[in-house]
Structure formats: structure tokens, C-alpha cells
């Protein structure tokens, strides 16, 4: 007669799990130690202490980085570049995806045909080839000494700089856009902004209160805009402008001065990722919108709502439940696809990691770090989106 506790289902399940865990741990340790032994046999001492050594190489763009900084800082700069591309890419790809999906669903045959062609072309060609095409396109721009000046600013005068500047300069070295440069009074503006936000919240509360009491329309939007505009006017009158426009210009034969400069590599990567992932997102959004029963749309129209309002208030909120999980996938894909930056010369995490691994010989350690970072970013993204998905999920009763 076996003991009672051994016949307990939960105990047996726990025992099996423990055994499996032990086996997996043993296999894992055997692999890791094998790798360490192989590295030592080849004369490469494994470890992470190389992260503190001087890098000795430069990084083309991103956070400030000197060749005297450490390898660890180089990887951090690469990570910052990856995040910059990933965040901008996710935002723009989502916007593009929604627009293309709505075009795809429109009744206008030209619009629908264009959207369909775009989606098919972008989804069915490899991303690496698209990136090469984008960078090739951006290499046809003129050299910086003959930069294209779009929206030219004031012509050269006695006080203005010569050559004349513009709001947007385009050349082989990248794009330089006019960027606001905070003036000394900016701190006061932050306080004013905080005050305006507080006032806006208070006003919205008051309007909701009025609507609940008297039934008059709340006009939240109008009142919020009024509060913000009046606070801005007040702050402008008291403090003066918060920032001045820093117009870009070409300095010397080599570079831009002023404004915000983006390199063609960043632009090519961003455009490539946005267009590629945007096509996938368009299909996800389309499937989400089409998952909402036609009865919903018909009922809303019967109530007299316009197409736009139907989409905004009835269809999209229900479609979002279906859209969010595959959308998470696309966001993760975009983040990981950004590692293709190495083929066009953008210094993202993977590219910098390759250089570090090559110069130190610690390829295994660097690859482990890079993979761990990508894993962390992906887990964080899916965590946030899953939380959002749970909040819009339909709760069956």
C-alpha cells in the first residue's frame, strides 16, 4: 500500500515538474560549461569584464560617444539608437496601417486598388531588399554643398547668416529640420503648462457637472481648447516666447549646423520598417474591423450616425479587441527587424555589438547580451500591450 501522499495528484505533478526542471537545468549547465571550456581551449578567456575597456571606435550617430568611452557605453548608445527607431517606427507604422486599412475597406475602387497593391508589394518582398532600395534612393540626393533647401527662410541680409537658411535642408548627409531651441525663460513655461493642465482638468470636471445637473451639452473639447489657448496667451504675454526656431544651414564643405539632423541611414531604416510593418498592420486592422458584425454598422447607420462616427464610436472599439494580439506581434517584429540596420550602416545595438565582439573576441558574451536586451524589450512591449488588451477585452457574463 503506497503512502497516501504519494497517491495525491498534486504531489505527483509537483514531483514530475521538479524532475523535469532538474533535467533541463542539467542540460543547460552542460551546454553553458561546454561553451566555456571550448572558449578557454581556444585561448579566449570568457567573462564580461571587457565591458569596462576602452572602445577605441566612434559611433556615427546617437548619444554623445567618444572613442575613449567603454564598450559598455557603446552598447548603450546602440541600444538607444534601436529604441529610437523602434518607438518612432511603431508609432508611424500604426498610423500608416490604420490609414491603409481604411483605404482598403473603402468603396472607391481606385483607393482600394492602390491600398491592395501597396499591401501586396510591401508584404511579399524581403525587408532587407526594401532597405537597400531605400538607402539607394536616399543616395541620389545632392551633395551637402548643393543641399536642397525646402521652404527657404529669409534671404541673406546684413544680419542673417549667409548662405540663406531654410526650414528643411536635404542632401546626401541627411535631412536637417528647424528645431525649437529653448530660451532662458523655458522653466517658467513648464510651470505655466502644469498650471494649464490642472485648469483644463478642473474645467472639464465643471462642464461634466453642469451637463449632469442641467443636461446642457458639455462641449469638453471647446472648453479645453479655450483654457489651453488662454493660458498660452497669458504665458506668452508675461514670459515671452518659450523657444526660438533654430534654422539649419550648411557649415563648411562637410556638415550642417543648427536644427535637428537625421542621417540617411536612420531615415532609410525608419521608412523601410514603417512601410513594411505598416502593410502587415493594415491587414491586421482590416481583419479587426471586418470582425465586427455587419449588424452593428447597420444599426448605427439606422440611428442616423455618419460613417465617420460609426467607425469611431461603434466599430473601432469592438475591433480593437481583435486587433491588439496580432498588433503585439507586429510591434515585436518591427523591433527585431530593426537589427537589419547593419546592412545599411546604421549603428544600432546589433551593429555595435558585432564591432565590439569582433574587437574583443568575446563574440559569445556579446551575442548573449544583445539577445538578452532584445528579449527584454520584446517582453516589455508584450507586457504593456497585453495589459491594454485585457482592459478592452469583452467580459462574457
Amino acid at each position: 500500500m503506497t503512502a497516501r501522499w504519494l497517491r495525491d495528484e498534486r504531489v505527483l505533478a509537483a514531483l514530475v515538474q521538479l524532475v523535469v526542471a532538474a533535467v533541463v537545468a542539467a542540460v543547460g549547465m552542460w551546454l553553458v560549461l561546454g561553451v566555456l571550456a571550448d572558449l578557454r581551449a581556444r585561448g579566449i578567456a570568457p567573462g564580461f569584464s571587457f565591458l569596462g575597456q576602452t572602445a577605441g571606435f566612434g559611433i556615427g550617430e546617437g548619444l554623445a560617444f567618444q572613442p575613449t568611452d567603454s564598450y559598455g557605453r557603446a552598447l548603450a548608445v546602440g541600444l538607444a539608437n534601436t529604441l529610437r527607431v523602434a518607438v518612432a517606427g511603431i508609432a508611424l507604422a500604426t498610423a500608416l496601417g490604420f490609414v491603409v486599412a481604411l483605404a482598403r475597406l473603402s468603396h472607391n475602387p481606385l483607393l482600394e486598388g492602390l491600398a491592395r497593391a501597396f499591401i501586396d508589394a510591401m508584404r511579399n518582398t524581403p525587408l532587407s531588399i526594401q532597405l537597400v532600395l531605400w538607402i539607394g534612393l536616399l543616395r541620389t540626393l545632392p551633395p551637402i554643398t548643393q543641399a536642397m533647401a525646402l521652404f527657404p527662410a529669409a534671404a541673406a541680409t546684413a544680419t542673417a547668416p549667409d548662405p540663406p537658411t531654410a526650414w528643411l535642408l536635404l542632401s546626401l548627409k541627411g535631412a536637417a529640420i528647424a528645431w525649437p531651441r529653448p530660451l532662458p525663460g523655458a522653466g517658467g513655461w513648464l510651470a505655466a503648462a502644469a498650471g494649464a493642465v490642472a485648469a483644463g482638468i478642473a474645467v472639464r470636471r465643471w462642464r461634466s457637472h453642469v451637463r449632469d445637473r442641467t443636461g446642457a451639452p458639455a462641449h469638453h473639447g471647446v472648453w479645453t481648447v479655450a483654457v489651453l489657448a488662454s493660458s498660452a496667451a497669458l504665458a506668452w504675454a508675461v514670459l515671452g516666447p518659450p523657444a526660438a526656431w533654430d534654422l539649419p544651414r550648411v557649415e563648411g564643405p562637410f556638415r550642417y549646423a543648427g536644427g535637428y539632423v537625421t542621417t540617411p541611414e536612420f531615415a532609410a531604416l525608419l521608412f523601410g520598417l514603417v512601410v513594411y510593418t505598416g502593410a502587415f498592420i493594415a491587414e491586421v486592422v482590416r481583419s479587426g474591423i471586418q470582425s465586427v458584425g455587419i449588424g452593428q454598422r447597420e444599426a448605427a447607420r439606422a440611428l442616423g450616425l455618419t460613417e465617420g462616427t460609426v467607425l469611431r464610436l461603434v466599430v473601432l472599439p469592438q475591433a480593437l479587441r481583435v486587433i491588439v494580439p496580432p498588433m503585439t506581434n507586429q510591434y515585436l517584429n518591427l523591433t527585431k527587424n530593426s537589427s537589419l540596420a547593419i546592412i545599411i550602416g546604421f549603428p544600432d545595438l546589433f551593429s555595435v555589438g558585432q564591432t565590439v565582439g569582433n574587437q574583443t573576441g568575446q563574440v559569445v558574451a556579446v551575442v548573449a547580451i544583445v539577445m538578452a536586451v532584445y528579449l527584454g524589450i520584446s517582453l516589455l512591449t508584450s507586457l504593456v500591450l497585453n495589459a491594454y488588451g485585457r482592459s478592452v477585452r469583452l467580459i462574457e457574463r
Partner: protein
Amino acid sequence: MRSRRSMPVLVMTLVLCTALLPLGACDNAGTEPAADVGGPAEMAADAITVSATAAALSDDEPPPAATSDGLLATVRARGTLRCGVQNELPGFGFLSPEGEYQGFDIDFCRAVAAAVLGDAEAVEFLPLTSQQRFTALQTGEVDVLIRNTTWTLSRDTTNGLDFGPTTFYDGQGMMVRSDLGVSELAGLGGASICVGAGTTTEKNLGDAMRSVGAEFTPVVLEDTAQVFSAYDEGRCDAVTSDKSQLAAQQTTLADPAAHVVLDVTMSKEPLGPAVLQGDAQWADVVNWVVFGIIAAEEFGITSTNIDEFMASEDPEIRRLLGLEDALGEGLGLANDFLVGTIRSVGNYGEIYDRNLGPDTTLDIPRGVNNLWTQGGLLYSPPFR
């Protein structure tokens, strides 16, 4: 119930931690020699020792080199030599339009194959980018790396390589457009400079520009062709690489005459073959094949007149050609291993003239890449 759901998560975390513990604990501190990868018991013992001694040990002991099976025997058994090479650098490693590998480094690959296998054509060429080349050698994908690789301390130690004799003494230079009117590095302040990823040039560029106090923006691209096409299209104002590479690639640009290589040498770049650390016999083989080729030029032995030298009475020449003293056996090769090599590939001078000489488009003057008797740096130890 909360406990049921969180149990698998807990178990997985535990598993991951135990598996990764050795990796984190081992941090460039010396450990017990792990020469042979033993069974699970030894694995466990190793892990415990690693964790226990990681804190106790104070200074670094160099990791002991384990002996491998002998690459010479492996290459012989395989019947071909796997050589890691360039395929985009005219003059050094280049794939011709007919599909033939040609170049200075290619000829040295052929020389090693002729010495070891008796057939200069028994070579498998693997084209590698500068990022891939060391990993390919470390994993054993190639037997020898002859791909204009610079001999540096860190590559000799932390990358786990052993370098053969320098076959080409080069230096790092800078190429700019002639119409920029720049004649020295300081004139490139603020410029964008194209450079290949994972090369010594990347490191030296930072050092050199810092020493002249010029700021610059590096544009780092993966392979040589991309670097020079980006420069040609105007993405960068200058491109930096070994001077021999600059001269070679200048011939491939759209308008070679519009570019000029600055008269600045930014660093020493001794280029030579590399093998994996730990196989002394294979390293000796590669070393002495190269020395033999240099010595052949010293004695005036060429691929055309070698048969006359086979009848020579000079003891040094007789030893070089294996007619006396059985020197090849010490290397594990046939005594006359250099005869077939010189006959098929030629001596150093012939290899140089064929690929970089005045009859080629590159026409790089020999400079220090000449025999020590002619004022250069090529000096072979004696064959005895």
C-alpha cells in the same frame, strides 16, 4: 489558485538561474584547467569550483592552450585546404568575372596547399567579411585566414589567433576627392568618413583624428564594396583603409583620377596569414611555407629556373629544396615541400609582380616589402 499558476514560473526562473550561474560567476579569473570536456560529474565539479573560486582568486592566469587533433592531419585527410579570403579587393583577393580567385593573398593560399597537399589547386576559398573572419577561424570553418588581416596584440591574445610572418607591410591611409583641396587630416574636421566594420582601421581612425584634434562622423558599413560605393556616391567625404586597399579600390571607382590618397600614414598595418592558437605544428607549417617563398627570392629561385637550382651545390639551397638534411620531416611535410610550391606559385617577387607589380593596374612600389638585402623588411630565418 495563485500557487498553481505561479509554480511553473518559479520553476522556470530557478532553472534559468542555475543554468546561467557559471557564466556570470566566471569573470576572467583563472579557474582549474578544463582541458578535456568530461562527463556530467566533471561538469558539476567544474561548476562548483568556478562558483567557489571566483571570489577567492585575485589575479588573472592565462588560459592554458589545449592541443587539438592536428589540423595538418585533418587537411591531409580532407584533401583540400579551406582558406578564408577576400573576394572584393583587387590585387589581394578578388573574384574575377570568369569565376577565378586571384590576388596576393590567394597565391599564398595556393602556396600552402601546394606544400601540404602537393596541388596548388586543391583549395576551397571561403570569402569572408571583416566581421565574419575571426569567427570563421575560431569555429574551424577555415583552416587558415589569408585575408589582409593586421597582426595586433589583442588579436594574438584575446581573439585566440596566431599570426604567420608578415607578407605585406602596410599602413593606414585616407582617400579624399581631389577637388576638396584637403592635404592633411586636420583639414577633415567635421567630415563624414566611411570605414569598414570590425577592422583595425575603425579603431585607428578615432585615435588619429583625435591626435590632430579633428572631429568627424564615422559611417560604418559591413563589407568593403559597400564602404567604397558609399564613398563613391558621395555619402562620405573621405574613406579610410590600408593604403594598399585604397590603391586597389581606387581603380574600381567611377572616376579614379578624381580621388587622391593623402600622403599620411595613420598606423602600422602588418598584414599576414593567421591560424587558430593551440596547433603549433600547423602554425609552423604555414610560417615556414611563407619563409620558404621569401628565401626563394633571396636565392633567386623562380618558377622558371627552379630545375637548374635542383642541381645546385650550395648547401643552403639544397636544404631549402629538400635535397639535403630532411628538414621537411620536422614539419610533418615531404622534404621537397617547397619545390612544388615554387614551381606552381613562384617566389615572393613573382607573387608580388603578378598581383601588385608595375604591369598591373595597381602598380604599388615595393617600398619596405622588399628583401632585407634590398633595404626592405622581408627576412627569412635560415633553413637549417
